[in-house]
C-alpha cells in the first residue's frame, strides 16, 4: 500500500499529455515584461531607469523588505518602459519592460553547465545567496525561499521534504525537471541539508511518475540521508500539510507551519533554482513551464525566461486553437484564468493550460442537495457547504469559528459538487473578509 494522506482528496483525470516531452528551450522573446511583484509579500523596488542597459541576471528591482525578493533581468537589453501591465492577478501591476538586444550574444548562448557536487559555502552564506538571487517557491505559492529557510534558533528541525508530487492534472514541468536534472536536484538537496543542518531528506513523488521515482531511487541507493517516497496518486497531495502527513505521518497543527512539526518542504523546482544559484551563480530568471491543452497542436515543456508574454509561448506551440474559451495560468485545479495572452510568465507560472469551449464553461449552479460529497473530499476536514452558506449570508464570525481560515483552496469541493455550486468562490471571499476582520481586531 502506497503512502498518502488519509482524509479527503480527489483524483481528477490526469491528462499529463506532455510527460514524455523533454524540456525545450523557448525562443528568446523580443520584449520581456518583468513584474516587480512575483512573490508573496512586499513588491520589490525598481532600481533601473528607462533607457538603462541591463545584463542577464542584473538586479533590476531590489527586495522591498524581509518578506520580499530581488528581481533580476532575464535578458540583456534596454529598459524601454516602466508601466502597468495586467499580470496573473488580473490587475495592472508595475512592470519593467525590457527590449532584448538582438546583438548581445549572451541572450542566445546555451551553456551546458557541468555538475558541481562540492559544497564550498558556509550555511549562512548559502542562505544569503538564496536571498540575493531572488529564489522563491516555484511550486506556485511563490513564497520567498529565504524566509522559509530562516529558522529561529532552537527550532527542532529533522526532515527536509522535497515536493515532487505535481498532483495537478496536465502539468508536467516538475516531472520533466526531475527526469532531466535529477543529479543537480540531489546536490541541491544536499546544499539545503548542509545549510539547515538537517540529516534526513525525503523526496515525495506520486506513483504516476514511476520513471522519476526509479531515477531518484537509483541515485540515492547508497545515500543514507536522502530517501524517496512513492505516493499514491491523489489530489491535493502537493499541499505542504498533506505531503507532510502522507510521508511522515505528522499532522501540521491548525494555522501552523510544517516547521512546527520539524519539517521544511520545498518544491523540486525551487531546489534546482537553489542549485543553480549556489553552484553556478545564476539568479532565478527562467523556469520550466508546461504549455498544454487537449486541442493544442504541439503541447510541450519549455525553459522560459521570466517576463515572456504568454502570447509568445502559445505561438511557440502552434497558436491558440479554434474555439479556445479559457486560458489558465497554472494547473486546472488551482490555476488562475487569465483575460488574454498578454500576461507575462512570472516565477509562479508552472503551466499554461488552454481549454476548449466544450470544457471551459462552468455548470449552472443548482440547489445544494446536501449529499455531503464536499465534506468527504475536503482534505482539511472542513464543511465547504456550510462555509459557503455562512460566507454568502455574511456570518463571518461563525465561519471563522468553523475554521474557514484553514482552507487551503485546493478546490476539491467545487470539483466534486454534483450541483456545480461555486463553493470555493464563496469560501475564498469569506476568507478574505475574515482575514480583514482579524487584522482589524488586532
Amino acid at each position, binding site marked *: 500500500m502506497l503512502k498518502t494522506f488519509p482524509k479527503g482528496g480527489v483524483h481528477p483525470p490526469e491528462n499529463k499529455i506532455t510527460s514524455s516531452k523533454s524540456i525545450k528551450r523557448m525562443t528568446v522573446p523580443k520584449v520581456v515584461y518583468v513584474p516587480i511583484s512575483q512573490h508573496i509579500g512586499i513588491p520589490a523596488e525598481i532600481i533601473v531607469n528607462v533607457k538603462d542597459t541591463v545584463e542577464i541576471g542584473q538586479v533590476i528591482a531590489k527586495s522591498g523588505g524581509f518578506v520580499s525578493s530581488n528581481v533580476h533581468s532575464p535578458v540583456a537589453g534596454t529598459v524601454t518602459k516602466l508601466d502597468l501591465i495586467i499580470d496573473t492577478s488580473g490587475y495592472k501591476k508595475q512592470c519593467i519592460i525590457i527590449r532584448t538586444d538582438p546583438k548581445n550574444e549572451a541572450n542566445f548562448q546555451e551553456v551546458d553547465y557541468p555538475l558541481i557536487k562540492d559544497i564550498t559555502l558556509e550555511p549562512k552564506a548559502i542562505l544569503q545567496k538564496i536571498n540575493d538571487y531572488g529564489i522563491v517557491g516555484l511550486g506556485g505559492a511563490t513564497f520567498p525561499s529565504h524566509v522559509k529557510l530562516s529558522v529561529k534558533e532552537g527550532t527542532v528541525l529533522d526532515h527536509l521534504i522535497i515536493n515532487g508530487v505535481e498532483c495537478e492534472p496536465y502539468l508536467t514541468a516538475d516531472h520533466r525537471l526531475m527526469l532531466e536534472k535529477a543529479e543537480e536536484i540531489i546536490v541541491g538537496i544536499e546544499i539545503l541539508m548542509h545549510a539547515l543542518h538537517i540529516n534526513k531528506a525525503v523526496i515525495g513523488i506520486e506513483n504516476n511518475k514511476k520513471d522519476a521515482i526509479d531515477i531518484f531511487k537509483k541515485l540515492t541507493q547508497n545515500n543514507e540521508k536522502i530517501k524517496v517516497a512513492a505516493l499514491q496518486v491523489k489530489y491535493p497531495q502537493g499541499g505542504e500539510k498533506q505531503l507532510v502527513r502522507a510521508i511522515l505521518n505528522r499532522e501540521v497543527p491548525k494555522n501552523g507551519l510544517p516547521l512546527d512539526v520539524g519539517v521544511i518542504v520545498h518544491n523540486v523546482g525551487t531546489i534546482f533554482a537553489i542549485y543553480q544559484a549556489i553552484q553556478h551563480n545564476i539568479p532565478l530568471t527562467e523556469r520550466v513551464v508546461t504549455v498544454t491543452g487537449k486541442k493544442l497542436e504541439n503541447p510541450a515543456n519549455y525553459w522560459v525566461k521570466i517576463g515572456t508574454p504568454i502570447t509568445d509561448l502559445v505561438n511557440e506551440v502552434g497558436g491558440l486553437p479554434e474555439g479556445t474559451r479559457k486560458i489558465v495560468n497554472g494547473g486546472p485545479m488551482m490555476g*488562475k*484564468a487569465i*483575460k488574454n495572452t498578454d500576461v507575462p510568465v512570472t516565477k509562479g507560472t508552472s503551466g499554461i493550460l488552454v481549454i476548449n469551449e466544450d470544457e471551459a464553461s462552468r455548470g449552472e449552479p443548482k440547489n445544494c442537495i446536501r449529499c455531503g460529497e464536499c465534506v468527504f473530499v475536503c482534505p482539511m476536514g472542513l464543511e465547504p457547504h456550510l462555509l459557503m452558506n455562512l460566507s454568502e449570508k455574511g456570518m463571518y464570525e461563525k465561519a471563522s469559528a468553523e475554521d474557514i481560515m484553514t482552507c487551503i483552496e485546493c478546490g476539491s469541493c467545487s470539483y466534486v459538487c454534483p450541483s456545480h455550486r*461555486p463553493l470555493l*468562490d*464563496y469560501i475564498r471571499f469569506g476568507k478574505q473578509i475574515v482575514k480583514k476582520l482579524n487584522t482589524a481586531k488586532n
Partner: protein
Amino acid sequence: MSESVLYSIFLLASLGIIAAVVLYLVSKKFYVYEDPLIGEVDAILPAANCGGCGSPGCKAFAEKLVKTEDISDLFCPVGGNAVMKMVAEVLGKQVAEKEPTLAVIRCQGACDVRPKTTEYQGPRNCAISAMIYSGETDCQYGCLGDGDCVAVCKFDAMYMDEATGLPVVITDKCTSCGACAEACPRDIIEMRPKHKKDLKIFVGCLNEDKAGIAKKSCDVACIGCSKCEDICPKDAITMLNNLAYIDPITCTLCRKCVEVCPTHSIIETNFPPKKVKKVEAIVEPEKIKTDA
C-alpha cells in the same frame, strides 16, 4: 358536575399564579438598569438600523450618543441635521452640523460604450468577481455591474439599470447612509454634498490609465487631458493619476468643465436645458452633453 367546574377553575388559577410568580422573580433577577435617556434618544432616531453612523443599529447609536461626552463627531446621516438637533436638545450636548450628502455613481461605462472583452462565470457578486480579476471589460476601475450596492441598500434607493448595466441612485430615497459606498469593491460610489435643487456636477469616471488605454477600454473615460482643470475659474478641479476630480465644496456649478470635456465624462444632472444663445457661443457645440 359543579365539582369538576370548580376543580378546573382552581387548577387554571393556580397555574396562572405560579407562572406569574415565576415570571416576576425572573424579571427581578435579570433586571438590567438602562439609562432612560437611551430610550428617549432611540425614539428620536429614524429606526432605519442602516449602520450609516458606524454603530450596529439605532439602539447602539443611541447608547453611544448618551455615553459619549463629546458627540460632535457622531452623526446620523439618515436623520440629518434635524434629528441631530433634537438629540442635542435631549442630551444637552453640542452636535456638529453637516451638509446633507448623496450617493453618486462615478462610472458611466454602460454596455454600449465599454465593450466586454471577457465573460465572467461565477457568483454574480462584485466582491467575489473583484477578487479574481479586473472585470469583464478592459477598465479595471469601473463598475462591475453585479449590484452589491443595490443589494446592500436598505431604503430601496438604488436599482440596476438593465439597459446600461449600471446602478442608479433614486435621489429622493437616498438617505446618504453610505452603505453602498462601503460595499463597492471599486469605490465608485462617492458621497457628495447635496446642492440646491439637487444639482450635481462630478467626474463620472475613475480610470487612472493613460489617455489611449483609457479611451480604448471605455468611450466615456476620463483621459486626463486637464482641459477641465484649465477652464475651471475656481480651481475646483484637480488632476491626479490621469484623472480629474471636482471638489464639491469649491465648485460653483458653473458647468464650464462639462462643456470642454472631450469624452463627456463629467456628469451634470438636474440643470435646466441650456438656452440656444449660450450654445452658439461655444466653440464646439456638438460636444455639449445634457445628461438629465
